């Protein structure tokens, strides 16, 4: 119980700390940050349920008014902004990444984590992100997809990194890889 709580809290803090890595902004303003990498790692390291709880805890603190998102953003305003779909998708993306990590337990950790990150952290996440843009900006699915497609290469790089980092953690701290426990 205690270890689960501290690991969930630590990975929520890890997402926040990854937001301190300088961001760069592409196209129409959606910032490219390392925080999505943190969401992928929540799933691939902590597993589906604990990973989801870590992301939910992080989002709850953002909603409570802590400036934990990249660029020092936070508060309730981010949940009514055009990127709300991505925020709603984060816990589901972490869950999906953890679930795929478990389903792919027969293949090596790094490869499984990379594939799980692509499926959870990109495919699942973008479904929610695109839906959010459609609602807030009143765009069609095709238009919203066109708006976010420029960010997919950056997220693919993050998925590859999530694979390498998860593999490194599996070697350094095998007990901590709860997604394979």
């Amino acid at each position: 119980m205690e270890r689960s709580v501290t690991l969930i809290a630590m990975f929520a803090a890890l997402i926040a700390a990854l937001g301190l890595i300088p961001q760069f902004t592409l196209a129409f303003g959606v910032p490219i940050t390392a925080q999505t990498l943190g969401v992928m790692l929540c799933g691939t390291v902590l597993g589906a349920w604990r990973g989801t709880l870590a992301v939910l805890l992080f989002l709850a603190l953002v909603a409570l008014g802590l400036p934990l998102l990249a660029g020092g953003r936070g508060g309730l305003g981010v949940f009514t902004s055009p990127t709300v779909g991505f925020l709603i998708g984060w816990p589901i993306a972490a869950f999906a990444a953890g679930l795929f990590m478990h389903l792919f337990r027969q293949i090596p950790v790094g490869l499984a984590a990379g594939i799980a990150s692509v499926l959870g952290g990109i495919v699942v996440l973008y479904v929610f992100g695109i839906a959010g843009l459609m609602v807030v900006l009143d765009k069609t699915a095709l238009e919203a997809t066109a708006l976010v497609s420029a960010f997919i290469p950056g997220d693919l790089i993050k998925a590859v990194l999530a694979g390498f980092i998860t593999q490194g953690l599996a070697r350094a701290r095998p007990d901590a890889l709860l997604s394979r426990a």
Partner: protein
Amino acid sequence: MISLTSPVKTRAHSWPAGLKLGALCLATMALFAAGDIAWHLGFAAFAVLLYALPGSLFMREGLRRLWALWPFVVLVVGWHLLTDDVTKGAVIALRMLTAVGLANLVTMTTTLRDMMGVVRWLLTPLRWLGVNTGAIEIAVALVIRFTPVLAEKGQMLAMAWRARSPRSVRWHIIAPFAVLAIDDADHVAEALRARGGLA
């Protein structure tokens, strides 16, 4: 850790957080239900008035936070100029700005403690189901403590990298960063168990 609550004290600071959050929900629903631009101009003017009432310092801070939305405003208005539907573009942009503005207003006038009070109240049904909600409150406190500690450790790792490599700091430090985080989590879990645990 610094929260986004405004240091400029307003009357709204003393209003119940639950009331403000409930009003925000209703206002957001109204914004999405209204289609006429006249309504949206009225809502936006009302939001500006709410920001103006506590004074210029409060208003400047509020507007500064809304500034992050400018790329979306440019995109929406530009798009609808091209499709020759400027009114619709104005409605979408006004709705977005007002919704985010009102939500920011609640954040700026509500302390973290008051927000936690609402969370505690919302968790009541879970307590009835036997869920240990104390663990959630501990987890919140741990994240607030862990975040600056992790940030400091990240900076130390980056400095160590720079001291040893001519290349710039890249993703290589994220894996040792995560190892440090896991080790810290294990130490804190051990300390919690030593003090009677969370059960």
